[in-house]
C-alpha cells in the first residue's frame, strides 16, 4: 500500500516537472515568435518468452521534446531525445533557424484554446508501476506455455511477449495551451505455428489493457492457436468475384486506411478521393462513421489532441452521406474551419497532422456477430488476415489489392481454409458495396474499432 502511495506522489511530481520544463522553453520565445513545446517521457518493459524460458527482457526509460516555432507565418521544427537543458536549448535554436527557411503562409499558426471543454478519459492504471518484473515475466511464460500446449496441432510458439508502457506528455505554448496527460498500457502478444513442416500455418493473438490486471493469458493464446489451427490444410484460393467477409481485425485495418482519406490536410492538398464530396452519398446508407476519442473504451481514447485541444466526437459519414473531415489547426485554417481537435503525432520527433484516434462504424442489427454476418452472406469468402496493405492500398486513388488467407463460406458457415490469394476492389466501391456491418464492435489496438464487415463484388485472385 505504501509503495502505491509513494509511486502516486512520484507521478504527480513528474507531470509537474514536464509542464515546468515545457513552460521554461516556451518562455524563451522572442518577440514576434510563437513557440509550442511537446514534452514526453515514459518507462517501458518488454519480455519475450521462448520454450519455457525468458529469451529477452528489456527495461527502458525514454524522454524527449519536440519544439515548433512560428515567426512571420513560417514554421520550424526540431526535436531531441533528451530533456537535458542544453540539448533542449539547442533544439529551440534549431527550430528557430529552420523557421527562417520556410515559405511564409498565412495559415501557419499554433493552436489556441478554443473553448471546448475537455471530457477527461482515465487512461492510467496506477498499479502497473508497482508490478514486479518477475510477475510480468511469469505472465509471458504462462502465455507461451498455454499457447504451446492448448492444442496438439500447435508445433511451435514463434513469440510470446509481455509489454507495458507508462507515458506522460505535456503540451505548452505561448498561444495559451497548457495541458498534460498520461497513459498506461500493457499487452500480451503471441504468435504460433500449427501443422506439419511444409504445411505450416500461423496465427496470432493478443490481449490489451490499461493495466496488468486486465491481461488475459487464455484469450491471447487460445485466439492465436485457433486462428492457426483452422488454416491447417489450406490450399491456394480460387479466382472468383464474390462477397468477402472481413474478420474484425482486418476490418479495423481497412477502416484505418480509409481514415487517411478523411484527413482535412489530405483533402485540402488534393490527396483524398473524398475531396469535394461533402453532402454526397459516398457509401451504403447503413454506414455511419464516427471518430470519438472521448469514448473511454477505445484503445486510442484521449483527453487532449497532440496540439493540446480537447478531443471531441466527430461525425464523418452519416447514413452514407459524407459530413466532415478531421482537422488540426493549420489544415483547418487552410480550409476555413476550426480544428476538430484531431491532431495526432508520432511522439516528440514528429509534427502534428490530423488523424483518427477512435473510428467506428455504427453497429448493425442486434445479434449481428460474425456468425450472423456469415449466415446472412451465405456463399463467399472469409478473410482472416491480410498482407501488403502498404504496397497495395492507395488512399489517394482508392485502388485496393491485398494478399489474404482465410476460409470459404458455404451455406452461411465457415468451410475449408484457403491461402495465397488476393482480394481487390477500390475503397470507393467497397464503401458502396458494404452489405453487412457487424454489431460485434471490439476496441482493438490501433485507431479504429473492429467489427465483422461483408463487402460484395470483390475480385478474389488465386489459382
Amino acid at each position, binding site marked *: 500500500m505504501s509503495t502505491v502511495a509513494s509511486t502516486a506522489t512520484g507521478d504527480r511530481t513528474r507531470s509537474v516537472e514536464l509542464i515546468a520544463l515545457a513552460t521554461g522553453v516556451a518562455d524563451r520565445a522572442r518577440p514576434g515568435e510563437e513557440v509550442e513545446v511537446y514534452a514526453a517521457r515514459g518507462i517501458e518493459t518488454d519480455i519475450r518468452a521462448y520454450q519455457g524460458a525468458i529469451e529477452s527482457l528489456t527495461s527502458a526509460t525514454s524522454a524527449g521534446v519536440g519544439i515548433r516555432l512560428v515567426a512571420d507565418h513560417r514554421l520550424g521544427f526540431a526535436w531531441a531525445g533528451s530533456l537535458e537543458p542544453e540539448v533542449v536549448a539547442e533544439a529551440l535554436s534549431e527550430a528557430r533557424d529552420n523557421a527562417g527557411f520556410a515559405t511564409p503562409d498565412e495559415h501557419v499558426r499554433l493552436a489556441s484554446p478554443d473553448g471546448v471543454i475537455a471530457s477527461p478519459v482515465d487512461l492510467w492504471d496506477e498499479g502497473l508501476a508497482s508490478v514486479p518484473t518477475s510477475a510480468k515475466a511469469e505472465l509471458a511464460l504462462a502465455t507461451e506455455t498455454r499457447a504451446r500446449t492448448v492444442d496438439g496441432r500447435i508445433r511451435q510458439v514463434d513469440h510470446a511477449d509481455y509489454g507495458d508502457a507508462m507515458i506522460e506528455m505535456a503540451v505548452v505554448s505561448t498561444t495559451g495551451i497548457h495541458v498534460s496527460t498520461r497513459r498506461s498500457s500493457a499487452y500480451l502478444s503471441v504468435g504460433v505455428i500449427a501443422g506439419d513442416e511444409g504445411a505450416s500455418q500461423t496465427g496470432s493473438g493478443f490481449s490489451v489493457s490499461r493495466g496488468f490486471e486486465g491481461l488475459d493469458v487464455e484469450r491471447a493464446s487460445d485466439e492465436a492457436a485457433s486462428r492457426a489451427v483452422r488454416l491447417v490444410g489450406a490450399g491456394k484460393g480460387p479466382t472468383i468475384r464474390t462477397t468477402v467477409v472481413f474478420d474484425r481485425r482486418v476490418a479495423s485495418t481497412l477502416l484505418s486506411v480509409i481514415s487517411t482519406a478523411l484527413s482535412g490536410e489530405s483533402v485540402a492538398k*488534393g*490527396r483524398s478521393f473524398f475531396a469535394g464530396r461533402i453532402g454526397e452519398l459516398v457509401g451504403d446508407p447503413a454506414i455511419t462513421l464516427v471518430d470519438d476519442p472521448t469514448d473511454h473504451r477505445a484503445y486510442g481514447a484521449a483527453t487532449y489532441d497532440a496540439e493540446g485541444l480537447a478531443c471531441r466526437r466527430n461525425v464523418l459519414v452519416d447514413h452514407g452521406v459524407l459530413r466532415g473531415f478531421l482537422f488540426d489547426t493549420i489544415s483547418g485554417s487552410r480550409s476555413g474551419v476550426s480544428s476538430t481537435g484531431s491532431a495526432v503525432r508520432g511522439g516528440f520527433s514528429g509534427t502534428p497532422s490530423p488523424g483518427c484516434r477512435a473510428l467506428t462504424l455504427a453497429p448493425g442489427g442486434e445479434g449481428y456477430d460474425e456468425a450472423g454476418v456469415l449466415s446472412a452472406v451465405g456463399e463467399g469468402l472469409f478473410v482472416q488476415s491480410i498482407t501488403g496493405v502498404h*504496397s497495395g492500398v492507395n488512399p489517394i486513388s482508392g485502388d485496393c489489392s491485398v494478399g489474404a488467407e482465410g476460409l470459404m463460406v458455404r451455406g452461411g458457415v465457415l468451410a475449408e481454409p484457403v491461402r495465397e490469394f488476393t482480394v481487390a476492389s477500390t475503397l470507393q466501391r467497397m464503401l458502396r458495396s458494404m452489405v453487412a456491418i457487424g454489431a460485434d464492435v471490439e476496441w482493438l489496438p490501433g485507431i479504429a474499432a473492429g467489427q465483422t464487415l461483408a463487402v460484395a463484388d470483390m475480385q478474389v485472385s488465386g489459382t
Partner: protein
Amino acid sequence: MIDTPVLERVLAAALRHGGDFAEVFAEDRSTSSALLDDGRVEELASGRERGAGIRVVSGETTGFAHTADLSEPGLLQAAEAASAVARSGSGATVVTAGPLVAPSGTRGPVRGAEATGIGSKADVLGVLRRADEAARGSGDAVTQVQAGCGSSVRRVLVVNSEGLLAEDSQIRTRFSVSCVATGDAGMQTGFESAARTMGFELFDEVSVEELAGLAARRALAKLSARPAPSGELPVVLAGGSGGILFHEACGHGLEADHIVKDASVYVGKVGQQVASPLVTLIDDGTVGSEWGTFGVNDEGRPAGRNVLIDHGVLTDYLWDFLRARKDGRASSGNGRRQSYQHLPMVRMTNTFLLPGEEDPDEVVAQTPQGVYVAKLGGGQVNTTTGDFVFGTTEAYLIENGRITAPLRDANLIGNGPEVLKRIDAVGTDFAMTPGTCGKDGQSVPVGCGQATMRLFGITIGGTAA
C-alpha cells in the same frame, strides 16, 4: 563518444551478477529533413538523439536496458538493469570483461561521415524546388507534388566483453518525390526516390529532374490505366525494384532468427536446390554507397558479403552474433538495429540477384502475354508459410511480346520456394533500389537489386476478372 576506461568499468558492472557476454552499443545521431509540399516549403526539421543500449547474455536469456544518459553513472545504472536477468538466471558461467582492443580494420570512422556533409539548408531547398518544378512541368494533369530530402549522421561505438572495440560513422541522404495526377476517372499517384550512404554529393550522382519526371510520368500514365488482371500470368520485372521479390520470397526466410525457431520454409534446405539455376543471390553490406551499406554493423562486426543462393542451391543463412553463437559459427555480419533503444537482430543489408545473360528487350519480346512491372513499391512475407506479396506502382500489359496498356496498382502474391523455381530468364541490365525494411517493430535501410527477369507464372491481384 565515451572514454575507454569508462566502457571497461560499465562492461564489468554489466557482468557483476554473472552472464557470459556483455555489450555496450552507443549511438549519436543527428537528422535533418526538409519537405516541400503543395508548392510551399512546409517544414524543416532537425533532430538529435544519443544514448546507449547495454545487453547482457546469460545462457539463453538476454537482458537489455537503454539510456539517453551517457555519463558514467547513467551507463552504470543501465548496466545494472540489463544484468537483472543474469542475477535471476541459474548457473550461467561468469565471464570477466577483459581490456578493450580494436581489431585492425574496424577502428575509426569507416564510412567517413566527416569527410563529406549533409548540404546546407538552402542547398537542400534548391533541390526540392527543382524537383517540384520538374514534376509540375511534366504535364498539366499533375495536380500535387511533394518533395522531401532527409539526411542523418550516425556515429556508433560498440564494445563487448570479448574485448571488441569498434566505431563507425555513417552518413545517409534520401530524396523522394510523390506526385498526384488528376483525370476524368479520378486521381493516380507516382513515386520515385534516391537514397545512398553518402552526403549531399548524392545530388552529383542523380538527376533530381529525372527522378521527379519519372514520378510524374508514373502518375500520368495510370490516369488511363485499366484494372490489373486477376489469376496467374507470366510477369517480367524490370531491373532494380524487382529485387524486392527476393527480399520477400527468400531474404527474410533466410534470417537465422526465423531458422532457429523453425519459423521459415527454408529450414533444413542448405545444400538443396531451392531456386532456378539462374538464381545466384548475394547479401552484401560492403557495396559502394548503397542504402544498406555500412562499415561496422550494430554489433561491432565489419559488414560482409555472403552468397545465399549459388546457381539455385541454398548455401547459407544470414546470422547475427546471438544466433551464430548458438550454432557455434561466426556471425555473417548481419546483426543490425534501428537505434540504441533496440536489441540487434538478423537483418539483410543489400540483397541482390547477380545479372544473367539475356537481352532485357528480348525477355519482353519472348513473352507473348503477361504483365510488365516497371516499378515495385514494397512487399511483405510470412516466413513460416513462405507466402509473400509485393505491390506494383508502375505496370503494363504485355501483348504479343510488346509492352502495351498501363495497369492500375495491385499486389502480386506467391509462395517463396515455388516462385524462385519459376524464374526462367535473367537479363544483363542490373540496377539497385533503396528501401526501408521493417521487422518486429524495427526499421533499417536496405538495398535490393536485380536485372530484368521473368517469372513464368505468378498470381496477380487485380480487379479485372
